């Protein structure tokens, strides 16, 4: 009900600027941490995953744990990081396996019904009832839209440099 008010123009622009700042900083950090040495498909894939997760994380940070889905995303990253610290040595293997596991569990959850499908798509939606799930979906959609726009702009600006 108060969703459109909550995401008025002012807060949307501030959200965009916060996300842009965080995302560009993350990109710079990624570039610094992992200078491009090879263009092998695996390296490219890893870099792609890192950029993707950086985008997700900076989006969730821009929303700031005000919403269920952003909280879920942040919690997932925290968990991943903890695990990452534990098994730093075997990163690539573990990541591959984890991705497979995630995919498998996701498929199992989306057994039937569109609500379950939606629950699978919206982060943190597994534990929600339909009402709050729809509300979260609305907010998540807006943020996803913003994310796509900003990423497009960043990619555009980088490719023109």
């Amino acid at each position: 009900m108060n969703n459109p008010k909550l995401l008025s123009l002012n807060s949307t622009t501030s959200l965009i600027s916060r996300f842009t700042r965080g995302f560009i900083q993350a990109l710079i950090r990624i570039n610094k941490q992992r200078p491009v040495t090879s263009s092998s498909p695996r390296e490219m894939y890893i870099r792609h995953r890192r950029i993707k997760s950086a985008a997700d994380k900076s989006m969730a940070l821009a929303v700031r744990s005000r919403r269920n889905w952003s909280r879920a995303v942040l919690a997932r990253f925290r968990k991943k990081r903890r695990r990452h610290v534990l098994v730093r040595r075997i990163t690539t293997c573990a990541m591959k396996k984890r991705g497979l596991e995630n995919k498998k569990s996701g498929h199992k959850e989306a057994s039937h019904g569109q609500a379950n499908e939606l629950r699978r798509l919206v982060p943190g939606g597994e534990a929600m009832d339909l009402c709050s799930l729809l509300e979260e979906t609305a907010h998540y959609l807006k943020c996803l839209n913003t994310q796509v726009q900003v990423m497009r702009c960043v990619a555009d600006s980088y490719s023109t440099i």
Partner: protein
Amino acid sequence: MDPPLISESSFSVANPSSYSLAEIWPFQINGANEVAIGGGGGGGLGLRIGNLGWFVDNSGHNRDGSAEESTVTEHSGGNGARKMRDLSSEDETSKLVSITASTGNNDLNDSNSKRIRATGSKNENGGLKTEVEANSVAGDKPAEQSCKPELPKQDFIHVRARRGQATDSHSLAERARREKISERMKILQDLVPGCNKVIGKALVLDEIINYIQSLQRQVEFLSMKLEAVNSRVNVNPAIEGFHSKELGAQPFDATGLMYGSQAARDYLQGVQSEWLHMQIGGSFERAS
């Protein structure tokens, strides 16, 4: 005999022994609540108030929403009438029609006639009565629980809603939930482009799911593109990398941010980039 004498504490704890004005007060609260909720609901406000006043009139107390204080002074003399009003007020707050303990034969007859006429009015007015009940159940349940928690519910079976609407609290809550869900669906329909024409909850949900998936795929694709571009940026201006390392990455960050936000603003104003054709699904064209 003035209404301002009524204190807060006296109507939160309704003691049946002292027949003070405070016992009338919960009903007025009820009326106020109904006015508030009915105002949110739109039309039919005056009709609902009239309906409510008519109920109470039938129970023999000549009271309606506006002229409450004067009728209170009118009926201050009779003990039985007072008791009856107490009962009826509690009835109003809980379920509108029920007989609890009766003080006398006269009162019983009174309330019987009230019930008969109440059903008559229900038949006349259709679903209005259920609306009143919905409001009273939704608004005054916590306030009423201290007074009479469960007793009027058994008698409530007599009242059946028109148009096949159930009136127990579970179905009322369910109805409220469904309304909430449809409201959210409407918001979502406004968000998803091209979803306004779609009729049916399942189809709308399908559209929403498709849209979210396409957006997530776009994010995936854009991160892939950024990966390629980012590495090229890093490789090509190698000297700039040193520069940024020396200066703590501040200048590059600032320019990038400025450019990014500027580009975002441009994009928001509707400037179409030339690489829009590269997107997946093309659902974003409808969005912008």
